[in-house]
């Protein structure tokens, strides 16, 4: 199936999100769609799926102009989307999810036997035949849930599959599996639109790249004929300089010393030191216990064993507020559910941790607070018209900078970072790396969990690798390679 979108424009009120965008997709190709947050990728894909209607422009399928007014229309055309936030209902079984709202019936009653057989058929087709059709969807790993979604799309006879950041929550192994399935689908003539921020993956799996910038189409490239630098330049419209800015910091004395740390069953035997000005990367597969180290240090999870020393003092942190008082900061993994109060303004979020610094006797000094926020907005280059706007109106990268701002009003001794650049575009990532470097230069000891190996390798001084809740080793970043890290993370030698 060939799809051709031409001259697509879309505005929400006065804001033009897309202006005359072209996008062409051929059967049996994997086509990456790239652009910074807010470039219009999601809007373009939602128009293709019938969630939104374009204000102007045409969509052709196999040379015939079509109107896509609803998701039902796009489904009939064989277009399916797999959202970043998966859409399975966790309490329903896999087969109930697969056949939701089109359950096979016999005498008006759901035909479970047929539903189970067909579910097995579609799951086997995506190489996930081991998933039990009767298990609750919520009990599956994120990777398995994604397989179920893909199976569902195929059962709807999808010829075009749109995947929005499909690898963001997957383990390395699940990613390999997903890429295998994508190659299979491609061989069967399915066209795949691949939306992602991960350059390495895009260059591995895609055939073509289309780039959007500020709602405009800036170019289409064949993968074999382009490179990272050109794509980044297309996306941000300027030379970005180093993807990973260098840091020249004198590493100081030990700030955080962890010895034989364990929690209620996720991690055990963890021991490491982090010095002033040092970034300790934490790598490992999803579920290996990386975040659990941070959560235990921060008093979210209970420490059942081991000692933690902070600047030579024993750390007592049974709650986050005790950890903060002791001088620990925590940039959480999921900014929407853990990092920000989305209904509050940029200002209110930025001062949530250290509000009492701007208060006397519990009464907030509004002027002092606003001045401090103005400083942080300026210092971190947070792009917002007004700090009084809701934080949810900001792009992902700027939201993440607000999460950093929460801690920087009074820089902590140790800053824990959990996936600090997830869902942030290239330009935003570089700015966050600069912030990390500045903090290190100011003597903060940083522990950074990340699933992106290039990021861990480039930003860390040393790398702690986790494997199944245990520490597989600590490597000097200068000597480590992606291979050595992955070998340790998968339990190899």
């Amino acid at each position, binding site marked *: 199936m060939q799809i051709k979108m031409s001259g697509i424009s879309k505005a929400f009120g006065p804001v033009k999100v897309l202006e005359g965008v072209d996008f062409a997709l051929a059967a049996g190709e994997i086509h990456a769609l790239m652009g910074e947050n807010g470039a219009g990728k999601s809007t373009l894909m939602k128009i293709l799926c019938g969630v939104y209607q374009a204000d102007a422009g045409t969509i052709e399928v196999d040379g015939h102009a079509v109107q896509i007014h609803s998701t039902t229309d796009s489904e009939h055309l064989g277009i399916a989307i797999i959202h970043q936030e998966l859409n399975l209902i966790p309490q329903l079984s896999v087969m109930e999810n697969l056949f939701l709202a089109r359950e096979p019936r016999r005498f008006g009653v759901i035909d479970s036997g047929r539903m189970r057989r067909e579910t097995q058929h579609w799951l086997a087709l995506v190489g996930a035949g081991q998933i039990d059709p009767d298990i609750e969807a919520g009990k599956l790993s994120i990777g398995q849930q994604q397989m179920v979604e893909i199976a569902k799309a195929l059962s709807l006879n999808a010829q075009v599959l749109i995947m929005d950041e499909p690898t963001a929550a997957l383990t390395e192994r699940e990613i390999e599996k997903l890429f295998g399935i994508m190659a299979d689908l491609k061989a069967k003539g399915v066209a795949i639109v691949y939306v992602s921020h991960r350059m390495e993956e895009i260059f591995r799996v895609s055939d073509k790249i289309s780039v959007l910038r500020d709602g405009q189409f800036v170019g289409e490239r064949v993968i074999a004929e382009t490179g990272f630098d050109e794509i980044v330049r297309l996306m941000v419209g300027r030379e970005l300089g180093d993807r990973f800015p260098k840091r020249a910091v004198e590493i100081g004395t030990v700030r955080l010393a962890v010895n034989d740390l364990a929690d209620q069953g996720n991690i055990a035997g963890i021991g490491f030191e982090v010095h002033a000005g040092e970034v300790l990367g934490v790598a490992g597969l999803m579920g290996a216990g990386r975040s659990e180290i941070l959560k235990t240090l921060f008093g979210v999870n209970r420490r059942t064993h081991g000692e933690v020393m902070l600047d030579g003092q024993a750390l007592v942190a049974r709650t986050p507020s005790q950890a903060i008082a002791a001088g620990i900061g925590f940039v*959480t993994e999921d900014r929407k559910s853990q*990092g920000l109060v989305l*209904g*509050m303004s940029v200002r*209110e979020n930025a001062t949530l941790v250290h*509000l009492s610094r701007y208060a006397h006797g*519990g009464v*907030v000094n509004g002027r002092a607070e606003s001045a401090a926020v103005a400083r942080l907005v300026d210092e971190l280059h947070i792009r917002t018209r007004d700090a009084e706007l809701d934080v949810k109106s900001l792009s992902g990268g700027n939201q993440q900078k607000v999460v950093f701002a929460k801690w920087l009003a009074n820089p902590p001794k140790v800053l824990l970072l959990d996936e600090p650049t997830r869902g942030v575009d290239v330009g935003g990532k570089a700015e966050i790396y600069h912030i990390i470097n500045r903090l290190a230069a100011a003597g903060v000891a940083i522990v950074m969990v990340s699933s992106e190996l290039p990021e861990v390798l480039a930003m860390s001084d040393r790398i702690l690798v986790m494997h199944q809740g245990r520490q597989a080793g600590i490597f000097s970043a200068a000597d480590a390679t992606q291979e050595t890290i992955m070998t340790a993370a998968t339990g190899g030698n």
Partner: protein
Amino acid sequence: MTPQQKATLQKLGPFLALLLVGAGLAFMSPDFLTVGNLMNVLRQVSINALIAFGMTLVILLGGIDLSVGSILALASVLTAMMMRAGYDPMFATLAGVFAGAVMGCVNGLIVAKGKVAPFIATLGMMTVLRGLSLVFSNGSPITGFQSDFFSMLGGGYVAGLIPVPVVWTLLMFALFWFVLKKTVFGRHVYATGGNAEAALLSGVKTDRVQIGVYTISGAMAAMAGMVLTSRLNSAQPTAGMGYELDAIAAVVLGGTSLAGGRGWIFGTLVGVLLIGVLNNGLNLLGVSSFYQQVIKGSVILLAVLIDRGSKK
């Protein structure tokens, strides 16, 4: 219209509705727009206002407090018993408010530490406290207080014109506005209601915020009980039944989200006045009390539907 202007207009929606209803009533009944009648309306709404202010905090947290009517009754009964036993009326009044705070604190502990859903926790407390007020009072009203101080609480006037309960209400309004707008505690209420996990991970002691808010709600209900008991010169163990619903209606009418995190105390004051003005106006117009309920309920639904519609 910019998004901010739209948001402001939306926020002022309930206020515009109040002005509209007021203007309509002024047009239909010559008795409505008189100083005497308006003071009467204000005095009538003060009990609901006091309860609704506390309820606003609870709802901002994403919670609900169904026990306010029972707290009102039990606190009133306790104060009345103390006065009958010869305690100083002022001391008895303060003790009653304190008792309400303790009852609210129990609500908060059950919700924050016991992790019980607020609806269930306060439903249980509602029944327990109602039972206790019947037990302590033996099921009959306690009457006959000889105290100028106590009868002034609900029946007195400041400067011969403004009823004392109205003064209380305005003072409490100012206090709540200040707390929500200007204090660390107020900010923590919004943050906890908006995203409890993010608040906790930012060092907000969310359990203390919850306990504090339910405690305040209890104290406010008890304070309303003092005003009511003073007005009636009688503490009734069955007083305050259904008051929680009036308070919730006022808070929601004022634009505070039941999901928590969004709302303001001015909206609640407007919601309280809207309900009060409707009651008063319908009485003046001689509408039967059966129809009054139909109309009141419809206005609440209509207001909330318009609010939801305009947010899309």
